């Protein structure tokens, strides 16, 4: 009975429950019933009952894992959010946010495909955030500061917080079970649900609340870790005032205005729990599960054509690596590099020359065994990356004394010289024809031919994971801090003992290293390498990825890379394709314009669209989509320069504060 008592929501929790259950249930229902969740699950179950479904056991396991992780995470998330919400913000506001941040992207992805859908929703989100800011400003709404109502929690309140999480998860699963039951009954009576699956309907309806209870306990534990207890202020430091149970308001204020706001924002309970780092963990789990099992999900999500889509995501993947690599040079160390494509070319040609018959031809020796060549790919990725890094150092040495835009032009020059060298030294590189017949990698029992892009998908995924890992570790290392110090002020850094020469050279070398990896992958995937894939325009596009995403911010740069890839490569293709279809609206638009401009096609204005988007994004969000925490503070520093008090921070409650704590 004790359990039953805890499961009855208290009066003040009810509003929160309604707020979050509706907020989360709608997207989950859209995914399950309108999109493919139900179909995937039924397919899995049919396999269990031996009624067909999925033939391949590996695919079956992957899909089952994905489903379990997906629903478990969402249920736990519901509990966490209910617990972590301070209840200051109204539910309508949250629901509007969820419409724009979750539902709209979901519908766009369902209707337009993954990359286009995400790119379009990113653009729409920018517009939404911009309009929301304007509306707030026009109506003089100043959202309450997240920290105003923060209290230290005593043991009793902590228990209650945990209870709230359990209640949240439990009732969310109950609601989910009921909705699901109703929908399944409708399906059953309309004859779309096999009778065998009714067993599952019963089990699920009984199981979900129990699962919800236990996941709620888990969510409660996670939420508790982010509270301020009477003893510590949430950052692991002991409170200094001896008043005991409650942390003094003055101290909280100090925390909010002078300590890093990013940490303060994560304290529980909070006004914007959906943006706290606790919730971000859950999003990350969802994202990782999705990305990891994507190749088997793809056919369910988007129908036929998995191979083509996976292949193009592989392309988007090396853009991510390139952007992350460039981010080290430009974002961390602040060295403007306009010739980054040179290292990409060096990496690509390294594997191109060794992985084909080119090397043996030039050396005039017998060609190597193709199997050996394919196996050589793995060590050669590292070698290609190291060769690129070596050239990074070579470029770095003459530029050590240069500053700002002089550095930019030298790197630009380097980026121009390298492709010319590859083009004109045709004895070794085949000049304009490029090197063809480059071997693909080999791995035990994996088919790397062009028709099965799944291995390349996982290869690029592994490379990206490696790159992100190294990036994060580097950023937080002594070297990373030295880079940032150089970016901020070279002289101050040098006088604090940072070795300018080695630090700068390391930045160039590390940046080039990742570019080399991307290059080797690019060549292996394409099976050829030719000099026209390495132009100044490419360098520019890489830079645009970094700046649009948010310079120096790792998640920002990843988003930027995907967005730019979609806008620059995918969108024009898609537009051009739909313009050939007489029923689409683009067809008539194109015909209308051709009357005035005869040479007009959508393929022809690729750069025009991209250029307009670049300018618009920069004007409305000059700091990038997801600016790094440090960058955000810097921006405010420049805006508030001259202000006497708290030049680093906006006072909570001021109009600028909301913009500060947005998306992360």
């Amino acid at each position, binding site marked *: 009975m004790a359990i039953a008592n805890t499961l009855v929501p208290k009066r003040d929790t009810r509003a929160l429950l309604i707020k979050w259950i509706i907020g989360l249930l709608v997207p989950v229902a859209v995914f399950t019933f309108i999109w493919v969740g139900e179909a995937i699950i039924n397919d899995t179950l049919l396999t269990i009952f031996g009624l067909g479904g999925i033939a391949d056991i590996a695919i079956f396991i992957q899909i089952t894992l994905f489903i379990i992780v997906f629903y478990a995470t969402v249920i736990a998330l519901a509990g966490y959010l209910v617990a972590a919400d301070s209840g200051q913000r109204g539910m309508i506001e949250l629901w509007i946010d969820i419409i724009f941040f979750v539902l709209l992207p979901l519908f766009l992805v369902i209707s337009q495909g993954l990359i286009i859908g995400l790119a379009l929703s990113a653009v729409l989100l920018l517009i939404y955030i911009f309009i929301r800011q304007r509306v707030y400003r026009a109506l003089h709404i100043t959202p309450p500061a997240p920290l105003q109502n923060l209290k230290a929690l005593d043991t009793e309140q902590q228990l209650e917080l945990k209870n709230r999480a359990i209640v949240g998860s439990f009732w969310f699963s109950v609601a989910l079970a009921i909705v699901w039951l109703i929908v399944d009954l409708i399906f059953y009576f309309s004859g779309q649900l096999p009778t065998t699956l009714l067993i599952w309907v019963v089990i699920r309806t009984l199981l979900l609340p129990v699962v919800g209870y236990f996941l709620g306990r888990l969510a409660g534990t996670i939420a508790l870790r982010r509270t301020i207890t009477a003893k510590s202020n949430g950052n692991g430091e002991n409170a200094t005032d001896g008043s005991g149970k409650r942390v003094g308001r003055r101290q909280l204020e100090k925390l909010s205005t002078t300590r890093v706001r990013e940490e303060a924002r994560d304290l529980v309970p909070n006004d914007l729990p959906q943006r706290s780092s606790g919730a971000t963990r859950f999003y990350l789990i969802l994202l990782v599960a999705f990305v990891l099992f994507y190749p088997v999900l793809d056919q369910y999500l988007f129908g036929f054509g998995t191979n083509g889509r996976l292949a193009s995501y592989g392309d988007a993947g090396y853009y991510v690596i390139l952007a992350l690599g460039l981010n080290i040079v430009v974002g961390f160390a602040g060295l*403007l590099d306009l010739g980054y494509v040179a290292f990409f070319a060096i990496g690509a040609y390294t594997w191109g020359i060794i992985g084909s018959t080119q090397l043996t031809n030039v050396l005039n020796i017998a060609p190597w065994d193709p199997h050996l060549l394919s196996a050589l790919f793995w060590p050669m990725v590292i070698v290609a990356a190291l060769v690129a890094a070596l050239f990074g150092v070579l470029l770095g040495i003459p530029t050590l004394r240069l500053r700002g835009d002089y550095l930019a032009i030298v790197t630009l020059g380097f980026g121009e010289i390298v492709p010319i060298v590859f083009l004109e030294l045709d004895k070794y590189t085949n000049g304009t024809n490029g090197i063809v017949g480059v071997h693909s990698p080999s791995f035990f029992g994996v088919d790397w031919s062009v028709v099965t892009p799944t291995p390349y998908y996982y290869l690029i995924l592994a490379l990206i994971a490696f790159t992100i890992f190294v990036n994060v570790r580097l950023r937080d290392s002594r070297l990373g801090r030295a880079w940032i110090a150089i970016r901020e002020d070279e*002289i101050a850094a040098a006088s604090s003992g940072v070795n300018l020469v080695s630090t700068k050279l390391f930045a160039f070398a590390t940046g080039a290293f990742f570019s080399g990896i991307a290059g080797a992958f690019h060549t292996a995937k394409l099976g050829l390498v030719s000099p026209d894939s390495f132009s100044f325009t490419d360098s520019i596009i890489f830079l645009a990825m970094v700046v649009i995403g948010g310079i120096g911010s790792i998640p920002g740069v990843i988003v930027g890379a995907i967005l730019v890839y979609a806008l620059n490569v995918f969108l024009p293709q898609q537009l051009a394709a739909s313009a050939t279809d007489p029923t689409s609206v683009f067809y008539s638009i194109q015909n209308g314009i051709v009357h005035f401009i005869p040479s007009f096609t959508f393929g022809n204005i690729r750069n025009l669209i991209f250029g307009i988007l670049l300018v618009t994004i920069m004007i409305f969000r000059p700091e990038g989509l997801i600016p790094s925490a440090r960058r955000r503070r810097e921006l405010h520093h420049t805006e508030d320069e001259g202000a006497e008090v708290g030049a680093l921070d906006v006072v909570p409650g001021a109009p600028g504060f909301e913009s500060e704590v947005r998306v992360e």
Partner: protein
Amino acid sequence: MTLFFQVLVVGLTTGAIYALIALGYTMVYGIIELINFAHGDIFMIGTFICISFFGLFGITNSSAAPTGLTLVSVLVITLLGSMVLCAVLGIVIERVAYRPLRNAPRLAPLISAIGVSLILEDVGKLWKGITIVPFPQIFPQKFYYIGSVSFSSVDILVIVVAAIMMVALQWMVTRTRTGRAMRAVAQDREAAALMGVNVNRIISITFFIGAALAGAAALIWGLKYGNTNFTLGFTLGLFAFTAAVLGGIGNIVGAMLGGVLIGVIEALASLICDTTQPGCPIGLPHGGSAWHEAFIFVILILILVFRPSGLLGQQTPEKV
């Protein structure tokens, strides 16, 4: 030796055009520290504007070239028209794409400039197509000789026009009130504003003048080389920007020097013979002209290694 001087003549004329474009880069950089990537494309649009002006006078590639006073008036009107239209384009770009970013992080206007450059390129593509566009050769070609070094009437025109523009610019910047205001803004924007300089207006004027010079360069480029293309702005812009950096970015005389230097390097590079052809023991594969870009940038890097602020750029002591 004759060959050397001949190459020098070629280098000087090309360099004069580079220098005119480089001035636009260097002025804008000097005043708002922005690499205006769109500048080369303004030049490209300028060449198209010139062709359209010729079209207004009924001059096409096939028609007979006008003579005498008609020729002079056509050239003057086209020159002024191209300069004014380019200048207006420059101001509009500044107003739309750069002014909102005046206080943004440093790389934001750079990306914005790249965006504008891409837009202009596609506008050029839609306007005249992707093929090479012939430019009506209406200026009579006559050849003159000093010793055995030949130079044409067009070469003289190019150098004269470029020289007039540069002298006028130099006079404007050093002698007039506006020029003084420009230098003041370049040195310290806030202090200049406190002294009563209208900073926004001065920046607009800078863009106006820079783009007008590109418009002038567009006409003489067309008369000298007889063709244009929508990618021309990119290639020439790159060289012109390099010229600006070589001379010391922000320095007007430096830009002229850099432009001429790059023209000469480019011409000298074409003297290197082709090792894939017989009878060339020392040289480069496919001859020097295939490598001229590489040459320009190698020399640029070498110069910057020894003079990190360009040939005439001032070594600004670091403030602590």
